[in-house]
């Protein structure tokens, strides 16, 4: 079978089992779009801006575990995709991003729509390729998928000059079954001696803590993590990226940790004597002041990426390997040893944690005449029985969603944790809905974030991806406003959005259902009504209390135990 470069690319995607490709056409990729036109296996989703394509592919990837695939043109098409690529890179999401490039003979001549996208994306991809020879195209695509999905996953860019896809040049096609790279061999199994040492330490712990992150989600290790945690009866906290890695409604779950984590999670971290970090990277939003991070703890760290280990916090027992086999080994060793941790010490530790928990640090004013954003998320959680896929944007609403939507399953919580990309939520939700047409998909957002990719409302209509948009509209860039209140003596510099669109009319003009909710009593009925509209995208514009802040908060430079609590919550000395 002789195929052109464009046909080879499309055939590669078919052979790779790609269901959806998110993209936007342009000059340099027209041969590829023509090849896409002539087949039905790979379905193209036409977005309205290339950033939306990357986020939609990202949402698809996060919710399924499969790589997301993007196709954009050269120059501005590719540069528009960069924010989405960087978003995926920071959260280790497998994407294969195909960018068109100007033809080989004119590369470097500042040709029309030329950009050095391999150079531009180098710091925010796991790897990238410029395909200079049609004979290397299939192999390069195979390598791209292999690199993107193995080890610590990440985005891979494949830049294809237009003449490489020329329909008049055809060569025999064969998709490589497998590929090996002498320079890339991600570790799978953890070192047995290290694992043994770690288990010894866990069994001897008196105030243990498990801290798990996005690696558990990416590595599909929620079952193993849950089994180990229950077996040991240890308290567990999840990072923002790790939510759903352990059931949030379980007694042993002490909530999210970090800057906006719960009092009990942060206090338990600070006071623990053994810390088991699983697929988490000691991000600055988690550790607070590094010098005072877990001062009493001996630290075990499981991670597939050696560079994550001892990057910011020195660890005592590093274990490099995929999370599933390492946790499975640990469970096996504990089982065969017949030993268990000191029950008395553990029960004293739990008593202390329950004391911290009794502070009820997430409580908020339920009698307010204004809609409290926390209440909206709580009601959403109840009405969707905690089973919805929730994509969020970035800001206060993201933190409230993380705090108040209790995720019991992995891959249901989709947000831009590392890069913190506003505009992520809506396109991500579309990607999720395409992958899970029968599941409830909600986008929790704010009036500032949603406007950054609002154009994708058109995509949601074109592909009939009925999602529910919960817009927590407080008129401000809420998180910016909160920092300005706390740190800049309430000088609200440029954080107030003076001219907002009428979101109800906006949604309607895009062909969706728009609703405005202004009173607390209307919150639940509105959500109920929206959720009943199974085949429609519904934009719910909740006018929320603009003065509400996210608590607790560890301010920059403070240690984990130095949280700012909501007004009205005080800690007596005994508790601290």
């Amino acid at each position, binding site marked *: 079978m002789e195929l052109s470069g464009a046909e080879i690319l499309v055939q590669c995607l078919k052979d790779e089992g790609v269901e959806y490709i998110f993209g936007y056409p342009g000059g340099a990729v027209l041969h590829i779009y023509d090849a896409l036109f002539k087949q039905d296996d790979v379905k193209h989703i036409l977005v309205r801006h290339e950033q939306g394509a990357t986020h939609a592919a990202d949402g698809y990837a996060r919710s399924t575990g499969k790589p997301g695939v993007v196709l954009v043109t050269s120059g501005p098409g590719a540069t528009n995709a960069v924010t989405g690529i960087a978003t995926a890179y920071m959260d280790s999401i497998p994407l294969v991003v195909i960018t068109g490039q100007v033809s080989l003979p004119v590369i470097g001549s500042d040709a029309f729509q030329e950009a050095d996208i391999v150079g531009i994306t180098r710091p925010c991809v796991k790897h990238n390729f410029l395909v200079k020879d049609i004979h290397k195209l299939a192999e390069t695509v195979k390598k791209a998928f292999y*690199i993107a999905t193995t080890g610590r996953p990440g985005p891979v860019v494949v830049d294809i000059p237009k003449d490489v896809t020329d329909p008049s040049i055809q060569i025999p096609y064969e998709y490589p079954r497998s590929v090996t790279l*002498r*320079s890339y061999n991600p570790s799978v199994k953890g070192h047995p001696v290290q694992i043994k040492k770690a288990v010894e330490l866990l069994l001897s712990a008196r105030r243990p803590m498990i801290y798990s992150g996005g690696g558990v989600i990416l590595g599909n290790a929620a079952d193993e993590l849950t089994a180990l945690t229950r077996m040991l009866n240890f308290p567990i906290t999840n990072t923002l990226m790790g939510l759903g890695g352990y059931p949030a409604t379980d007694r042993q779950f002490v909530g999210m940790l970090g800057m906006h984590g719960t009092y009990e999670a942060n206090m338990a971290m600070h006071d623990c004597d053994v810390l088991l970090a699983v697929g988490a990277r000691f991000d600055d939003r988690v550790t607070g002041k590094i010098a005072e991070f877990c001062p009493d703890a001996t630290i075990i760290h499981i991670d597939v*990426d*050696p*560079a994550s280990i*001892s*990057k910011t916090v020195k660890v005592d027992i590093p274990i490099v390997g995929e999370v599933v086999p390492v946790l499975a080994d640990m469970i096996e060793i504990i089982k065969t040893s017949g030993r268990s941790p000191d029950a008395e010490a553990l029960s004293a530790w739990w008593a202390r944690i329950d004391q911290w928990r009794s502070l009820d640090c997430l409580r908020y004013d339920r009698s307010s005449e204004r809609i409290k954003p926390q209440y909206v998320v709580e009601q959403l959680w109840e009405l969707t029985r905690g089973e919805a896929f929730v994509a969020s944007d970035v800001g206060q609403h993201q933190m409230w969603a993380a705090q108040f939507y209790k995720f019991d399953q992995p891959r249901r919580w989709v947000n831009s944790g590392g890069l913190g990309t506003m505009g992520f939520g809506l396109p991500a939700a579309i990607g999720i809905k395409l992958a899970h047409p029968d599941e409830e998909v909600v986008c929790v957002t704010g009036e500032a974030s949603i406007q950054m990719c609002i154009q994708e409302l058109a995509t949601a209509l074109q592909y009939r991806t009925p999602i529910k948009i919960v817009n927590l509209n407080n008129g401000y860039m809420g998180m910016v406003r909160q920092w300005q209140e706390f740190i800049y003596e309430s000088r609200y510099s440029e954080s107030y959005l003076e001219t907002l669109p009428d979101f109800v009319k906006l949604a309607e003009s895009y062909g969706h259902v728009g609703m405005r909710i202004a009173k607390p009593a209307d919150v639940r009925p509105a959500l109920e009504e929206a959720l009943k509209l199974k085949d429609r995208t519904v934009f719910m514009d909740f006018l929320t209390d603009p003065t509400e802040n996210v608590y607790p908060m560890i301010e920059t430079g403070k240690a984990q135990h130095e949280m700012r609590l909501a007004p009205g919550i005080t800690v007596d000395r005994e508790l601290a």
Partner: protein
Amino acid sequence: MRHIISILIENESGALSRVAGLFSARGYNIESLTVAPTQDPTLSRMTIVTSGSDEVIEQITKQLNKLIDVVKLIDLSESAHIERELMLVKVRAADGAREEVKRLADIFRGNIIDVTPTSYVIEVTGEKAKLDAFLQALREDAIVEVVRSGTTGILRGERGLHV
């Protein structure tokens, strides 16, 4: 502390900028960097001289290893090794100065590889400190131009860095 990191890297276009970009993006020091293909034309050998605390050097080696194009890596400074740098110096050498400059070059086992009535080009190889010493020994106003290759190095003994 000063470290010499030796890397075998795929001889692909862009490989050098991946390494250089890593150092600038993560704020690591880079004193010198040399690169050229090996006897296997698909591989390049790169030598990077850098400095930092043990933690920083550990991160540098891990981050370098993480680059997909990096095949193998070794911190030469952790083992017995030999390091060399090549320097070319153009000096003013007219009339009375010619003899003195030549004597100095001999002391440092340098070779004069280009001669005009008023100048020499001297080639010196050695460790960085030796080259620094040679420059100090020359009169400052005699130096027209200095070109240094940056340090390269190799392990002593049988052990080598190969695929």
